């Protein structure tokens, strides 16, 4: 099943430029993709210095994240992300400093934007897929505008939850878009061992729309997602988009991919770098140049620096946070445990 594509590997537009993308938005996409690439470097460095727990680099998947995110309307749409969707989360207004705190394991890292349209990052694979369906279904029932986008990986797509969610999306006409980031790997397991099937085809089995898209083509990802969103908000139901892409880095900073990734395969994948492809086209169109690249990089670096400053200023984690937000009201038994904790802590100090 040939993936849908608008930019060929050489960066030539092979179809119409999707609606809604003016020079500014295109530059915004470019900037967010650049931010992703540099964030990887910075975060890996921070992790090496013991400042982050583990970090899941996104390099290679910038186009799939950014294209699908830009096609949504963050003023009304909701994001239900897996890890590795830092770019989508930032696009939905998560402060980068908060994101870093979360990766550090700091309680303040759990704070989500006030607007409530961003779900927490999910640890359990595909467990958030039925949440996205319920959310979208509920928005339809409540007559709220917008749609839901939910990203997960090729590995997560093997989980039962993924199937249950997609089938439920079908029968409930939920305005939800599943973006499956088929990046070739689930940690060390290649897609060929993950499934013999075509992930996008699963849509037919559950009666939702399905599309296989070149995930390294930010314009195709944008167009496919925009089309899915249009269908969703018009009552046409859910869509599954399989973004065919490639994880250029490690699974996380705890992982050593040289143990299992074939060097030649990786080299080959690098020739399909989504950033390069988009930059080539942007440059050819006169929408991008060295100056803009430098400005964008400066902007990116500044944002990252600001975030690191915020991160450093967070102060130590407050242990009182441990007992908060279990229930709306603290039951007596938990209050007793809190007292036990405090007594033990006094003792320890």
């Amino acid at each position: 099943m040939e993936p849908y594509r608008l930019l060929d590997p050489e960066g030539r537009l092979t179809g119409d430029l999707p609606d809604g993308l003016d020079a500014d938005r295109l530059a915004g996409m470019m900037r967010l993709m650049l931010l992703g690439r540099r964030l990887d470097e910075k975060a890996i460095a921070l992790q090496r210095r013991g400042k982050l727990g583990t970090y899941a680099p996104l390099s290679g998947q910038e186009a799939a994240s950014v294209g699908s995110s830009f096609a949504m309307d963050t003023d009304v749409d909701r994001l239900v992300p897996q890890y590795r969707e830092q770019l989508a989360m930032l696009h939905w207004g998560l402060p980068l400093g908060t994101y870093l705190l979360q990766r550090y394991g700091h309680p303040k890292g759990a704070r989500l934007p006030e607007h409530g349209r961003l779900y927490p990052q999910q640890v359990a694979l595909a467990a958030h897929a039925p949440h996205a369906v319920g959310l979208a279904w509920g928005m339809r029932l409540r007559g709220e505008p917008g749609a839901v986008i939910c990203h997960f990986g090729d590995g997560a797509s093997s989980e039962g939850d993924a199937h249950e969610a997609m089938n439920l999306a079908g029968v409930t006409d939920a305005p939800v878009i599943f973006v499956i980031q088929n990046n070739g790997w689930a940690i060390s397991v290649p897609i060929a061992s993950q499934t013999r099937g075509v992930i996008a085809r699963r849509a037919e089995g559950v009666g939702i729309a399905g599309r296989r898209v070149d995930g390294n083509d930010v314009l195709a990802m944008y167009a496919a997602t925009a089309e899915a969103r249009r269908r969703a908000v018009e009552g046409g139901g859910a869509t599954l988009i399989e973004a065919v892409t490639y994880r250029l880095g490690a699974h996380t900073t705890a992982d050593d991919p040289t143990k299992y990734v074939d060097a030649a395969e990786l080299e080959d994948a690098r020739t399909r770098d989504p950033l390069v492809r988009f930059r080539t086209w942007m440059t050819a169109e006169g929408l991008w140049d060295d100056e803009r690249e430098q400005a964008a990089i400066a902007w990116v670096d500044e944002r990252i620096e600001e975030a690191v400053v915020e991160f450093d200023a967070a102060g130590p984690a407050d242990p009182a946070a441990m007992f908060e937000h279990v229930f709306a009201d603290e039951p007596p038994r938990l209050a007793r445990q809190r007292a036990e904790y405090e007594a033990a802590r006094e003792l320890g100090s």
Partner: protein
Amino acid sequence: MTTQSMIEAIRATLEDEMARDERVMVLGEDVGTQGGVFRATEGLKQRFGADRVVDTPVAEAGIIGASIGLATAGMVPVAELQFLGFAHQAFHQIGFQLGRFRYRTLGAFPLQVTIRAPYGGAVHAPELHSDAFEAMLANAPGLKIVAPSTAADARGLLTAAIRDPDPVIYLEPLRGYRLVRDDVPDGDHLTPIGAVRIARPGTDVTVLAWSFQVVNALEAAELAAEEGIDVEVVDIRSLVPLDEAGIAASVTRTGRCVVVEEAPRTAGFGAELVATVQELCFLDLEAPIVRLSGWDTPYPMPLLERDYVPDTARILDAVRRTAAY
């Protein structure tokens, strides 16, 4: 006051809560056209429509997962699991998503979700339909768990559960559905979650039970009374949060305690009650706390379940031994 069976009380409560709050919706397998395999949702689809009373596909993780999402969209889902034994297909969603969203998001995503599930033995249903699995859920933080034993509490606790801002697992006794009938207060009746009910006051031995075992315990108490043993039956009602004070008050008075549950003994919720009582009432205890339970075997074939699930005779025996210790 209206005299109702538990299932009638449950049905009426669902109807009233749906009428009161248009965000309340019911979803699950066969809850719509059929009105539930036990008729707990009978007539609701006809009254409130297919958008608010939804027959879902057979996918428990999907049902609970979707309920989480629905709640974050502002709905108030009341999900039915056809039997508690199929909660396990959704165990990750119940224990580790539903129970944790408020915590994970520092309070930004509270989940006003109720899960109703029938369970309990001695109704000639096969394993998984009958097993008591309370403890597994009780060990997962962030969930409230209630289990009424009267029609009045069936109404009071279900009303409280649906209106509770946090997720509540509401366990319904299969055996009590039609067998248990009592007076249900009219109007808005809420039973506070987290408070025991003294089902029968007594002075000699405390029996801790919940769900249908309260009925057995009360029967055993009557028999014990004929022998001169005055049993206090404490209906736990709310496993989480647990009314430690209420339990301790009773055992402090009687000094003797029997715990009854239907689950396999090892790591059942009965163990938690024993541990709590021995902590809070150590110096008051005049006899070891006795645990009655199902055995550490899978639920047996239906013809043997009466040998598996604690009954009046076993409770009476334990009460006698405890009183005589």
